[in-house]
């Protein structure tokens, strides 16, 4: 088992290096640091001195890959590639373009993100599974057809409208919960209600259909026929046999996104003013803070690869057939 995990970790390493190279190429080769400096300083009256000063302040005044001026090992380390890209592997994110410590920001902002994302995931799971189980139980009837049509309709509405509509209806008309904002401690809870609810509702369409398909696939298997032949009642069949077996694809699907929950949701957080990593990223994009975007791209990939790793491991735990391959 340990050897297996070790092998998967080693396999993830080249992918991380690839991600790092892609981000480096995207951020420093497509546009030179000079271009970025000009962008930040504005188009008008940019003197070469101002550009040099900006690069100096933000640590971009180095050659990209090879520093010929400094000798020895320094010629490789005193470069943009080493300072800005290689150091990401050690989770040293450095300074943002506005001068803040990115690592510190991330450590602080991932908790509000998790506070929204985790309840959304758990509540959503309960809602989608019960909904899909209901449809699968009444498969082929009008309840099922109506449910599927409803799913398609709900799927066709943009997430933005769920948020805007929810904010308007619950927050502005009924005045039940605050529209947006955040607070520390227990006070934060009342700000999480609306985003969690909307997050769950917005995904009912696609998830309801997805889980229904999984249940229907399980219902077509041989063990279901055997159970029926034994005389198992239909509800017992659904809950004891189908639900249990369907949990394998469901759970492994969820394990992939578990680490990514720290990243939060971009639009959710910015609409509701939650100081998580999602709104951090959006702010960075809108302020064109490349250092933050670069760090978030890398962090997101690391978390995703971690998710894949956890999926592999959970597969071997759930399904013994896979362990040996």
């Amino acid at each position, binding site marked *: 088992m340990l050897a297996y995990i070790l092998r998967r970790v080693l396999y993830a390493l080249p992918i991380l290096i690839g991600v790092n190279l892609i981000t480096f190429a995207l951020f420093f080769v497509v546009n030179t640091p000079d271009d970025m400096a000009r962008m930040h300083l504005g188009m008008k009256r940019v003197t070469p001195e101002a550009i040099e000063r900006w690069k100096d302040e933000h640590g971009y005044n180095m050659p990209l890959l090879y520093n010929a001026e400094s000798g020895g090992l320094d010629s490789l380390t005193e470069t943009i590639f080493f300072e800005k890209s290689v150091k990401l592997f050690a989770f040293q994110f450095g300074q943002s373009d506005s001068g803040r410590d990115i690592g510190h920001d991330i450590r602080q902002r991932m908790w509000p993100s998790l506070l929204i994302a985790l309840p959304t995931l758990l509540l959503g799971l309960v809602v989608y599974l019960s909904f899909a189980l209901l449809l699968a139980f009444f498969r082929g009837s009008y309840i099922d057809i109506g449910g599927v049509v409803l799913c*398609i309709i709900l799927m066709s509405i943009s997430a933005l*409208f769920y948020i805007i509509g929810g904010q308007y209806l619950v927050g502005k008309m009924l005045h039940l919960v605050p529209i947006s904002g955040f607070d520390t401690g227990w006070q934060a809870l009342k700000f999480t209600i609306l985003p969690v609810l909307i997050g769950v509702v917005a995904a009912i369409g696609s998830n309801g259909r997805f889980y229904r398909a999984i249940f229907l696939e399980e219902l077509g298997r041989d063990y279901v026929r055997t159970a029926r032949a034994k005389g198992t009642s239909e509800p017992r069949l659904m809950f004891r046999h189908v639900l249990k077996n369907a949990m394998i694809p469901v759970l492994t699907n969820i394990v992939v996104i578990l680490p990514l929950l720290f990243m939060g949701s971009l639009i959710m957080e910015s609409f509701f003013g939650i100081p998580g990593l999602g709104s951090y990223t959006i702010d960075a994009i809108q302020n064109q803070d490349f250092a933050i975007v670069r760090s978030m791209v890398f962090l997101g990939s690391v978390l*995703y690869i971690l998710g894949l790793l956890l999926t592999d491991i959970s597969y071997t735990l759930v399904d013994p057939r896979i362990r040996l391959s």
Partner: protein
Amino acid sequence: MMPVILWTDALVWLLVAVIVLSGFYMRSKPHLREPWQRVIRSRTGMSALVVLLAFVLIGLLDSLHFREALPDQTQGGEVHYSGEVMSVFDKLVGPLRTRVEKTYSAPFSAWLYMKEMVERPDGSQVLDYPRLEHGAAHLADPVTERDADIARRLGLATLQTLLCMALLGLATAALVARRYRLDLRAALGLSLRGGTALPLPALLLTLTVLIWLLFAAVNLAGAYHVFGTDKVGQDVFYQALKSIRTGLIIGTLTTLIMLPFAVLLGIMAGYFRGWVDDVIQYLYTTLNSIPGVLLIAAAVLMMQVYVDTHPELFETMAERADLRLLFLCIILGVTSWTGLCRMLRGETLKLREMDYIQAATAFGVPNFVVILRHILPNVMHIVLIAVVLDFSGLVLAEAVLSYVGVGVDPTMNSWGNMINRARLEMAREPMVWWSLLAAFIFMFTLVLAANLFSDVVRDAFDPRLREQRG
């Protein structure tokens, strides 16, 4: 008049050509023709297709661009062209584009949203809602006359629709009569009962609704701002119509750009295996592990810097916005080919072990020919399903990306931009809701139609689902 061929226009027409050609191709292949016939017989599928085609028609009309010649000032001299790029669609809807108010006004309203100093007939000035310059301007007293006027125009639209549908129904019956060798009355009865292979009742019903909407729009939009006006007084209905092209382009061009990568690499990985497979797998796993939105955001940001630091490359505003749209499609395409690639790889791995392919290899048929003749036709259904399924997701993604700030150019009409601008006005009292409504209705209709259609297509083409049905 000087025709202007924007990059996306050229690609859109290329896409139309590709679709027509692949239509002919699929007609000649029984294993692809048969599922399409299933689609044609489906009521939902055909109704959704009619709605989609209506959108496509507007989008195509909006993809023929030109610059109008300025009125000739120097007799016999050189002709100068306006800097404004127009489309055939702009020309068709004519006044909708030019009838601009001062600022916001509600749908069907005769007054501006905000109070202004208005001069009374007696010369005194008061703070009041001024009348609109164009909206309901033909009415002397909008308070009493407006509702009756709207009802009259809608009634007219209904009459026109009935007339139109009567003609269309007769034409259909005549066609059915020829096809099934019946007399006209029997043919009419057959089509209305739904006895034909095409689901004619559903089709005609959808067409009726569409034609009624068309006539209602023609009758009403000439005199009112059907969806109100936005902050700078532009007609929201016009913006929503113009956004159709943007949505369609994002949904289709992205796929067109992604397809060659996905198909070529996917089949190569599955067919050659070995190091080719390793390299391609590494490539898509790496790209796939960067969260989609972040990769798109990073790429668009870099593109923005490039566009901003090289302003000399673009002649007109429209060209700049257009190139940005194209870049967005390319970026979306580059980030989204991985899923299809993986599916094609898996399918090719299975296919290459099949007897007929083993036989072809044993006979010494070159790899290239095996792929083209034996593998490609047998993975076409996967490609088709993926293309149709991706479309609605991409249309929805445009709105979110525009909100995040990495979508289409802010000067370009798109539903995402409409939502984004309207969002800032949510706090106003009374609320400015009409831009949101217009964007919602158009997006919802397009995406719903696309979702329904793609469901029917997938059901018809997916062999696994077909087996389940027995």
